[in-house]
Structure formats: C-alpha cells, structure tokens
C-alpha cells in the first residue's frame, strides 16, 4: 500500500507563540536574536518583519536600517524545541505516528488515516484550528521529501498518489533540501527549477554534484527510503480505579489507595523513577471532586511509606453519598537514587531513607517550612551566618567557624536592655533584662561586627560576652558609636552555655 505523508511547516513558530502570549506584539515587527561571534544575528523573525523585507540570518545592524522600530528578544532554542514537541503531541489525534522535523516542522504519517475524513478535510480542519494563531503550511504526498517540498514551496497542498513528480517539477532546487554548496553550483549552471535537471541521468548528476542530489531526488520520488522517527506517545503516570459500589468508608478509600499505589509503583520502578508529588482525586456520585495531594522529600516508590502519607490525609475526603471513581496521578517524578535500584528496596528503606520518610510524614502535617537544617554561610553578621536547607544530604561547603565566641541560644530579634556602662569601649557594669538586674562580674570583648554594606545599611554592633554574679552568661551589644548627644542603645542577643 502506498504511504501518505503530511508535512507541516510553521514559518513563524516561536514568533507566533510570542504574539499569542503577549497581545501587544500581534502584527508587530520583531525578531529573536542570537549572538554569533561579534555580530547579533536575527534567528527568527515575525511575519510583519518578513513583510518589511527582513530575512532570517540577517545581522541585526542591517535590519535596523530597513526597519527602525524593530523589537528584539533573546532566542532560546530549547523553548522552540519544547513548543514543537508539544505541537507534535497535539497532532497525535490525527495519526499515531508523528515525527519532528526540527526546528519548525512536523511529519504526520497519514497512511490509512483517511477513512473517516478525506485528505482535503484533514487539511481544512488543521488550518481552521490554527487560523489566527499560528501561520501554517501543509503538504501531502507519498514521500516525506515531496510532502516537505510541497509544504515549503508549492502553491497547492495535496499531491495525489504517485503524482509527486508532477508537483515537484516547477519547484526550485531548494525544495529538495540540498546542501548549500550544491545549491550554489546548480544556480551557477542555470538550473533554476527541478524539472531542468531531474531527468538527467543519475551518473551524470553524481559526477557534477555528488551523491546527495541523487539520494534526495530518489527520496522525493519514493525510490529510496527515508527514515521516519515517530515520537513516543506521552503516557501520564495515572491510574484509575472504578468502583462497582460507591465507597463511603475510610477503609474503602484505604484499599483504593493501596491498590492504585501498587500498580503505579510497579510501573515507576520499571522506569527507575520515584514519586515526588502525587494527587488522589475522588469523584463523588453527586459529581463533586475531592482531592488530596502528598509530597515527599526524596523520590520514593516505597508503597508502605506513600500509603502512610495518604493515610494522614484521608480524613479530608468527604465521601458523602459515595465515591465511584478514584484517579491517582503522579504530578512530579524524579529519578531514583542509585541505591534504591535493588528490588527489595520497595519493602525496607535505607538508613537515610528512613529519616527522609519520617520527615515526609511530619511535613504532611506541619508543612514543608517546619523542617530545617542549617549550614554555615560566610557572613559575619550573626543572623546571616547560617542558611537553612531542606536537603538531607547537603554538606557544608566551609567549616563551621570556631574562632569567635558564639552563644548557644540566640534570640530571633535582639531585645533592648537598660545598662549602666562606665566609659566608651567598656562593657556595662549592670544591665536590666525582663525586670531583673544583672551585675556583671566578668566580660570579654568588644567584638565589632559591621553591617555588610553590600547587603544592608545600618550601624555596626559591638558585642560583649558577659557573665553576671550568678554565673549566667549573655551576649550583649551596643549599636553604633558612642555619641555625646544621644545615649547609646544596648541590646541582648543571646545566651551562652
């Protein structure tokens, strides 16, 4: 049976998307630029820019002469690739085989897909869908090469079976996707359209232009094979459980969760990934939707553990008349750490894993922000000298500082105290904190800590470590310099052991 291919070309793929996202750009001339050596090159341009005579691969400096109000944006190739991939996934509704033709095209294998709709109807439907959003060009032919050529260069859209040659004849040599050097040579010799050289004997063509031209002609006419690599259909990590009888009890929900987890985890294990976030949706008889969501600190496929996390939240579900359908969806996955690969890990967790699971349970109840580890940070200002991390494995990059005395308990906010201090640069003799007078017997300091001007403006602090008559040790500081006009402010900031 004859193959039928549909080629799609989005001449302004990224720029069209930008106009959809940002309405003010619609109908404007703008370009995406990339730096190439010391030149800025326009990599993608909008339709309006094209109308003004701009072309891709033009230096931006030249373009400015033609169009003074040209807007420019940075070009991100990954974004374009992602968009094209998403497009390809959308086209799976027409055929199971969709291939990418980077950077701005797609191929659809339409063989046998025209039972319900003719090829013309397909073309019309696709065009209608994209009308006003994306500029699109379509070509249908027996071969990939011919479909591509028709989409890019021909006026008509469909080449009837076995008629691709007829449609190719009037097209320029570029339509065969030849290399730049070959194209230049063809032009030099006066071959402006395909019909001028397509009937020349292959051996003669090869002598002049190399092997490539014969290969391309053969592929376009269907004499030589061309690879078609379809994308794999996305398969969301989702499991459904229909209930014969509506479920109303917590026990029933538990069984449902256990069932769903088992199927999901066995699939995740095969793919070497673990759950980070998962959602359970329960559809009630009266049409209402109830959802509970869990998250983990580490990717996990430990069924018992994940079940416990869901169990903590079961009481949030109101079954009312009963639940008829459960859907469990894994919304975030991550590759499993290497040690979990062995198959018995689904039952007994590792050392650090056990702690991670404990923290998961706590964070479900108390929220992620409740759990903290601290690592040293290279700042003198005491409040900035530690940083909070959530990762269990992260190790400090620098040593914990030991050279300066630091209290064991630090107040979150320094609290003002009343002091009587003899002369500048001496620790106070007494201070009052929470209505209690402390007589200072021993003191160390001062240790001056300046504000880090690149982070924060403010006065410096002169810290003293003091001990009162009972042996209680405090960390006090005076804010700023002594001044004859105003009294210096003193604060308590911590307690030493």
């Amino acid at each position, binding site marked *: 049976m004859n193959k039928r291919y549909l080629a799609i070309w989005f001449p302004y793929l990224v720029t069209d998307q930008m106009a959809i996202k940002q309405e003010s750009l619609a109908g404007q001339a703008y370009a995406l630029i990339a730096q190439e050596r010391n030149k800025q090159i326009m990599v993608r341009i909008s339709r309006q820019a094209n109308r003004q005579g701009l072309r891709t691969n033009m230096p931006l400096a030249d373009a400015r002469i033609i169009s003074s109000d040209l807007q420019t944006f940075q070009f991100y190739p990954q974004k374009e690739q992602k968009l094209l991939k998403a497009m390809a996934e959308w086209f799976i509704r027409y055929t199971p085989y969709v291939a990418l033709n980077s950077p701005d095209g797609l191929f659809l294998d339409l063989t046998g897909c025209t039972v319900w709709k003719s090829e013309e109807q397909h073309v019309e439907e696709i065009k209608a869908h994209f009308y006003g959003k994306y500029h699109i060009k379509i070509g249908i032919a027996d071969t990939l090469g011919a479909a591509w050529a028709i989409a890019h260069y021909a006026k008509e859209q469909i080449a009837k079976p076995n008629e691709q040659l007829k449609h190719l004849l009037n097209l320029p040599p570029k339509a065969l996707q030849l290399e730049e050097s070959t194209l230049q040579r063809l032009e030099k010799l006066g071959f402006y359209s395909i019909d001028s050289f397509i009937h020349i004997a292959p051996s003669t063509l090869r002598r002049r232009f190399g092997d490539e031209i014969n290969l391309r002609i053969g592929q376009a006419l269907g004499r030589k094979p061309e690879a078609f690599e379809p994308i794999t259909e996305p398969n969301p990590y989702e499991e459904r459980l229909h209930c014969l009888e509506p479920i109303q009890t917590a026990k029933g929900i538990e069984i449902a969760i256990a069932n769903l987890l088992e199927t999901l985890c066995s699939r995740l294990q095969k793919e070497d990934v673990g759950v980070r976030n998962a959602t359970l949706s329960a559809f009630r008889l009266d049409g209402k939707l109830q959802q509970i969501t869990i998250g983990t600190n580490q990717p996990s496929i430990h069924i018992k553990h994940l079940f416990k996390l869901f169990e903590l939240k079961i009481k949030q579900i109101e079954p009312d008349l009963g639940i008829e359908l459960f859907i469990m969806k894994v919304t975030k996955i991550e590759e499993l750490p290497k040690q979990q690969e062995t198959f018995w890990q689904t039952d007994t967790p590792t*050392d*650090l894993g*056990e*702690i991670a699971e*404990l*923290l998961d*349970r*706590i964070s479900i*109840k*108390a929220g992620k922000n*409740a*759990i*903290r*580890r*601290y*690592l*040293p940070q290279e700042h003198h200002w*005491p409040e900035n*000298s*530690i940083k909070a991390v959530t990762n*269990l494995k*992260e*190790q*400090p990059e620098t040593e*914990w*500082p*030991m050279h300066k*005395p*630091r*209290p*064991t*308990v*630090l*107040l*979150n906010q320094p609290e003002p105290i009343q002091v009587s201090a003899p002369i500048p640069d001496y620790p106070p003799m007494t201070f009052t904190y929470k209505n209690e007078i402390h007589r200072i*017997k*021993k*003191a*160390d300091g001062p240790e001056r800590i300046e504000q880090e001007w690149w982070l924060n403006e403010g006065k410096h602090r002169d810290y003293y*470590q*003091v*001990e009162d*008559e*009972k*042996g*209680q*040790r*405090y960390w006090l500081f005076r804010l700023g310099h002594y001044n004859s006009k105003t009294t210096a402010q003193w604060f308590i900031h*911590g*307690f*030493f*052991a």
Partner: protein
Amino acid sequence: MQNPLQKIIIERLQREILDLEGFKTKTQSDQSKLGLKILEDNFPNQTFPTGTIHEFVSEKPEHTACTSAFISGLLSKLNKQNGIYIWIGKQRQLFPVGLKKFGILPHQIIFINLVKQKDILWATEEALKCKSLSGVISELEDITFAQSQRLQLTVEKSRVTGFILRTQTAHIHATACAARWKITPLVSENENHLPGVGFAKWQVDLLKVRNGNTASCTVSYHHGELAIIENTAPYLFTHQAIGS
C-alpha cells in the same frame, strides 16, 4: 523471712526488667564513656542509660542554653561522629554556630518547628520510632505521665535516646522518664587567673533517677571534655529546689 533462693530470683527478675526498659548491662568496652563517673554511678548498672527518655527542666533561657550545651556534650560522647539528631520545638532558639564547641556538628541536627504541643508530642513519638536517628530532643512545656509512658514504650522498641526539655516547671509530677536533670549555670572557671569569661561550668542536678540515686555535682566543659569538679551533697529537697 525471705528465702535466699527467692532473693536471687527477685534480683534476676529486676535485672531482666531493667534490661527490658532499656538499661544495658555494663560491658568492659563502654566503661564511663562520658567521663562523669560520679554521676554515672547513680544510674542502674552504673551506666548512663541510652535508649530511654531523659527529662531536663529549665525555666529560663539561660538554663536552656546550658542544658542544650550539656545535651550536645553528652550526645557527642555517646555517638559516632556522623549521627543524625532531630530537635523538635516551638521556635528555633538554638544557634547552630554555637553548638560546634560542644561536640556536635550543627548540620547533623534537623530542626522541626511546630506550634501545637500536641503536634510536638506526635512528631516526637514518630521521630523516636525511627531507628536511624542517634537522638531526639524535644522542647515541651509540660508532659503528663501517660504521655511520657507512651514515649518510653516507643523507645523500648526502637532504642533511640530521647531528651525532653521542659520549660514549664511550676507543677512537676511523676513521669516515666529514666532520669530528671536540671542544669544551671555557675560562675565560669578561669585558668591561671586570666581575665574575662572562662570555661563553662554548670551545676548538674540529677533530681530523680529511676532505680538509681539522686546526685548533684558541678561539671565543667573545656577542650571538648565534660569533667566533674566537685561532688556536692546529694540533693534531698528536690521539689523545693525546682519551685524556687
């Protein structure tokens, strides 16, 4: 009159009960790990009991600072270098940087901040179930006998050492904890009459020890070692002392 055979049987049973409650029999290898022999002698089997719950009372932040330091001093002696600890409390007041001096690397501690007492108790129990932890420290306002009993039963299974730091000291009633401690600061110790604040020194009171004796002594901490300086008189009027 008690039969000598009965006496032997009772002694053996007592030993078995102790073993079940988490008090390990003394072995040659772990003799006086802490370096606090006089204190340790007051515990059953003359060893500091691990795998049990210890209760620390501290009413003022000054005392909390000393208690935290003392606990980290104990933990660093009891465990290997790379243990992981969980510290559960209402709001973190502990300053991680200040802990290294007392033998614990601050990044070994996972801090959990919870608001409700009930949640703290729940998290403490969950944490105590986790065998991979080297210690669980929990800051609580108060704990009832039933609650402490529940925690004790948890650690008997998991053998994790728990430390409860209680801040409310007005009404202290019996708990199922292995020991009740009180650490208060003392005037620091200056070497060779050097000026300034010297090495940390604390009054360590063992107010209550299950199957053991109360004790009281002054302990100093320098160069990473806990050392007993003086054995003060046994603490008799414990409740009066707490109430003051």
